[in-house]
């Protein structure tokens, strides 16, 4: 009797070609973009904008190590950004003085390493008490610590420079790769290199056992304990790495702006990085990159067009939290798969009511916000909309506000009842 039962388990592991496509190609794509940008010979404003985007990408990604990957909501991540930046600033001044042997030979290009170390140290000290808790207590501790450190920042003027902060000069020390760090194109190379290093190593971190365990701790800390790991220690180690990368971003900012003020430690930048990561989408690795790009562009460009850009930011954030919790990257990914599965026509059919509805509501709110902002300024300025002048008191203005909003809400209502009709 021949027993030919052979178990051939299906090999679920990705082939090396798939691994290459999923893991290496996006990074190569990023390198290509970073290399192509200087070919367009960007203007000064574009260069400074690109630098800000690079810094925010590293900062937002480091934040997502906590929120997206580790499930730890922090309201004080700017503390590590700020402390890393201050450490880099003091190192920059030491290079400038050139008194001690070590610092006089230290290239400015390597300052993000100093920021990395300082952020890791700060994370190791502050994380020790706070990582014993998760969830809301962790969020509250981070809030309290952020308030304390921000207040201390204004108190100790010799370290943090008081209200004016401290300044430095980046054109000192030995030149690395022939970069004097003076011109903006040199700074672009500096930011691009470190943005890539930060992104690549944070992506690599998600592939390590620690990165995987941090996701497991987010989803089910009890089971992590069952398989013999301590969630507290995992959180603590992730926290240190997140602080370290935030410190690296801080050092990039220190070199780029050559000034650091205690405001960088406060709750405002902590809130901003939360918005960046969440709007971009915390469930996808590239999400915070998308968020950093969109929010930095909003911050610098939308604020030229309208004074109420923070209001638009708030509306965007609330809409994301309410309607698209997976963020902008989730929306992009979702529509990409929908179009692939059902074709463009089919997926448009699904949103044929919702898309115009949201557009109409947005249009009405835009007119409302813009006319009110101009009224509130008291400069007597009138909102011009497609060549139409809309003063606050004119009935046409209010028609343009109420009309689209009511029409949009009605369309949404119809979409809802249609949906219910489809699935009784």
């Amino acid at each position, binding site marked *: 009797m021949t027993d030919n039962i052979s178990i051939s388990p299906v090999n679920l592991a990705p082939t090396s070609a798939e691994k290459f496509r999923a893991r290496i190609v996006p990074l190569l794509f990023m390198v290509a973009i970073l290399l192509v940008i200087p070919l367009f010979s960007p203007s000064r404003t574009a260069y400074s904008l690109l630098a800000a985007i690079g810094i925010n990408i590293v900062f937002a990604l480091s934040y997502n190590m906590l929120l997206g990957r580790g499930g730890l*909501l922090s309201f004080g991540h700017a503390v590590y950004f700020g402390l890393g930046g201050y450490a880099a600033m003091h190192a920059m001044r030491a290079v400038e003085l050139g008194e001690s042997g070590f610092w006089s030979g230290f290239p400015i290009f390597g300052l993000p390493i100093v920021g990395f170390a300082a952020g890791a140290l700060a994370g190791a000290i502050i994380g020790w008490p706070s990582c014993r808790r998760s969830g809301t207590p962790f969020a509250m501790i981070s809030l309290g610590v952020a308030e304390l450190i921000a*207040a201390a920042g204004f108190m100790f003027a010799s370290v943090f420079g008081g209200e004016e902060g401290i300044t430095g000069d980046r054109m000192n020390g030995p030149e690395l790769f022939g970069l004097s760090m003076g011109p903006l194109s040199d700074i672009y190379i500096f930011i691009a290199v470190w943005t890539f290093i930060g992104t690549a190593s944070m992506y690599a971190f998600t592939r390590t056992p620690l990165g995987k365990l941090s996701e497991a701790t987010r989803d089910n800390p009890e089971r992590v304990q069952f398989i013999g790991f301590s969630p507290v220690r995992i959180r603590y180690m992730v926290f240190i790495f997140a602080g370290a990368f935030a410190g690296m971003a801080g050092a990039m900012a220190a070199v780029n702006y050559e000034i650091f003020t205690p405001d960088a430690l406060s709750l405002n930048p902590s809130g901003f990085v939360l918005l960046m990561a969440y709007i971009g989408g915390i469930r996808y690795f590239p999400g915070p990159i998308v968020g950093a790009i969109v929010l930095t562009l909003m911050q610098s460009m939308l604020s030229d067009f309208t004074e109420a850009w923070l209001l638009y930011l708030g509306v965007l954030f609330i809409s994301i939290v309410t309607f698209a919790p997976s963020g902008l990257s989730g929306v992009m990914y979702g529509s990409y798969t929908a179009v692939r599965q059902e074709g463009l026509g089919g997926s448009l059919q699904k949103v044929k009511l919702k898309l115009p509805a949201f557009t109409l509501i947005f249009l009405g709110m835009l007119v409302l916000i813009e006319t009110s902002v101009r009224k509130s300024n008291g400069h007597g300025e009138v909102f011009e909309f497609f060549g139409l002048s809309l003063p606050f008191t004119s009935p046409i203005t209010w028609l343009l506000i109420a009309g689209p909003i009511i029409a949009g809400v009605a369309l949404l209502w119809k979409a809802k009842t249609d949906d219910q009709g489809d699935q009784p």
Partner: protein
Amino acid sequence: METILFSLLNGVIYGLLLFMLSSGLTLIFSMMGILNFAHASFYMLGAYFAYSFTQVTSFWLALIFAPILVGLFGAAVERWGLRKVHANGHVAELLFTFGLAYLIDEVVKIIWGKNTVDYQIPHALDFPLFELFGAQYPAYRMFILVVAVAMLAVLWYLLKRTRIGLIIQASLTHPHMVGHLGHNVPRIFMAVFGAGCALAALAGVIGGNYLTTEPSMATFMGPVVFVVVVVGGLGSLEGAFIASLLIGLMQTFAISISASFGDIFGWAGLSPTSELGSITISSLAPMLPFLMLVLILMIRPNGLMGTREV
């Protein structure tokens, strides 16, 4: 002596204002698990609504209608905002209120301007009540005290002596069981959320003219209110009451102490002119609540009177 007495009075008043703000937050937090970041924004809305009311009518109407309006607005936020987000978990709810606080800040700046508005104490209460050690004590502060104590009494009666209070207390710990007994738990949530916002607005109405009414008042007050809730303990109004008074007294007393570290630790060789030595106790006052928050969360996560962990 007079410093101590005045600090005591002012501390108690500040503490009662804090309690008015945090009582609603404690109920909301322990019932729904939502740490409402926008709670202080409702306090700010109360102050601004009251300011607009006093422009048109009188302070006394504002005292009644501003909290009602804000309470209705809060209930609407719960009904059409938070309830929708609830499916995505607590973090999404927290972030929703975080964004709402952002939004209310900006809207207030557009409607009422970026500067402090001139929200004044009503004329009928603008006189010195009594004189102590040659210093006059304004009647309006006593009025705050009276309103706060009255609110405290009403709240205590409602929660401990009525059927509604019984249901609310039950839903604090066992919302599913209350639902099984046939009560509409989502509606209870909405009502409690609205009532909590109305209490915050009441604090804004009577505190806005005692402190200042400006767009940054929410960001200033918000974190302190969290501290009260966490220090007091989850689901414990008594704890919130003790914590409010504690923080109120601590801050007012710290402000009145002008001694510096150098004066206190001079025996240990700390020079009063050095950077650490020149820090005064009064400059530390805004930091004290957060120090307390971090310490409590680490040492006693239940808070002072709480029965469960945060």
